[in-house]
């Protein structure tokens, strides 16, 4: 009747062999990944030294390291990184909270949802970057306008993603709680939300990427600090070292933040109360 916790039997020879191969493969994949990275930077550096490429245009790993240390000496490095990350996190959090909130409202009222549908479709297909100048004039140049830019880019996608999840909640489960006399709020808290933590987390993952896009675009347009500013400034004064350095910092920061969301997802998955059992 009841399936007991899986017990580990003594490993058979075949099983041990299989596990060993699995481990080897895992190591091989990791090694290959690291090799690609090392090879890329090595070729870049050597090709620059041999003048096969012009480091003035392509920069070079050694120059990037020098630029990094210069920025650090001037005390600017963490200021730029900090501002950009702060804007991104703010845009990301706002996008998630507001997006989920609007999705709840649209789920709640089919009427509002139908009324707003064409507007959402238009807003979703509109390149939000076009709104940049408007935000700058309305809000003024500075971090606020940049956060709003990030929000504009991530909000609609979040709404649509989360709403889709809500609407796909099992109608029979909804019916079940309704047979107990559940009102709309109870239907939401007992069925729709708990069965949709997955789609909310998916929306988070998409949001992280979009927030970065929004912040960098915002900084391109307006700012006096941040990684996007460094990229634009570096481009304007033809300092490719600065541009490349900023891009690499940006890649690292974005990857870290994505890993953060994955980490949160794992935490939630471990708790079946929140995530259901996968």
């Amino acid at each position: 009747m009841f399936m007991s916790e899986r017990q580990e039997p003594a490993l058979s020879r075949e099983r041990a062999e299989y596990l060993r191969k699995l481990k080897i493969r895992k190591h091989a994949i990791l090694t290959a990944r690291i090799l690609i990275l090392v090879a890329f930077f090595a070729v870049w550096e050597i090709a620059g030294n041999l003048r096969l490429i012009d480091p003035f245009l392509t920069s070079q790993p050694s120059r990037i390291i020098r630029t990094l240390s210069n920025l650090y000496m001037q005390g600017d490095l963490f200021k730029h990184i900090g501002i950009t990350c702060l804007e991104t996190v703010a845009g990301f959090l706002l996008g998630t909270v507001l997006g989920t909130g609007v999705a709840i409202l649209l789920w709640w009222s089919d009427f509002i949802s139908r009324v707003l549908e064409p507007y959402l479709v238009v807003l979703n297909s509109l390149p939000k970057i076009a709104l940049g100048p408007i935000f700058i004039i309305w809000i003024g140049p500075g971090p606020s306008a940049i956060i709003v830019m990030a929000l504009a880019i991530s909000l609609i996608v979040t709404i649509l993603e989360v709403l889709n999840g809500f609407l796909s909640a099992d109608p029979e489960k909804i019916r079940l709680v309704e047979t107990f006399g559940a009102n709309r709020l109870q239907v939401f808290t007992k069925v729709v939300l708990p069965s949709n933590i997955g789609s909310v987390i998916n929306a988070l993952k998409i949001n992280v990427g979009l927030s970065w896009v929004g912040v960098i675009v915002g900084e391109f347009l307006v700012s006096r600090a941040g990684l996007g500013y460094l990229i634009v400034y570096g481009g304007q004064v033809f300092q490719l070292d600065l541009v490349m350095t900023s891009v690499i910092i940006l890649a690292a920061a974005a990857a870290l933040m994505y890993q953060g969301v994955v980490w949160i997802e794992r935490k939630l998955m471990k708790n079946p109360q929140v995530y259901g059992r996968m």
Partner: protein
Amino acid sequence: MAEELVDVRNLGMKYQSPNGEIEAVRDVSFTVSKGEFVSLVGPSGCGKSTILSIISGLLKPTSGSVRIGGEWVRGASRKVGYMLQKDHLFDWRTIYQNVLLGLEVRGALNKESKERVMGLLNTYGLYEFRDKYPDQLSGGMRQRAALIRTLAVDPEILLLDEAFSALDYQMRIAVTDDIYGIIKREQKTVIMVTHDISESISMSDRVIVISKRPATVIAIHDIKFNLKERSPLACRETREFPGYFNMIWRELDVHV
């Protein structure tokens, strides 16, 4: 004659949609006495489930009325417990949290009701599994848990809507026996909807034969077996069983 608990009178239901009107139920009347097990048997899609939804108060009929214990049904009735096709246990809740769902929704969660639920879990062999999750239980256990979730709110009437049809045949026979035993022990009144003639005969005191859409009452049969201790499985082996089956089969007038 026992006390009349459910009175369904001249029920009619028309569904409206942009593509037209569908008459699902036409002039259906019957009564159910306290402690009785009544089933509505009819072809799939004939509107039987609509009748159950109306009795439970989830649906408002276009005509006619339902009274339970003399009171008109308006909105989801607290006297009714509903069992759907699948167990629909929530996989993010433990068995214990699952069976408390109805009490939670009705705001009836207190020491007394929790104790009653613990008692039910204990009586029906789920106490040890209360902290497990549904996917750790077998199909039969899950059905039991679903029944206890329904019984937890202490309904006077149970409505079973094709409640076992998601199970495979062997499991279904076993679960039917199990659930029937529990229902009788708890002395609940039951209205069951099914398309399975054998199932309806084996469980019911009375079978109401329903026509194709729009659902109307074709016939009502009292089902009596010469058994000391009645169980669905034992009923299937009696001499009377095939007679009932053939009669209802003919009335349903099934064509391929």
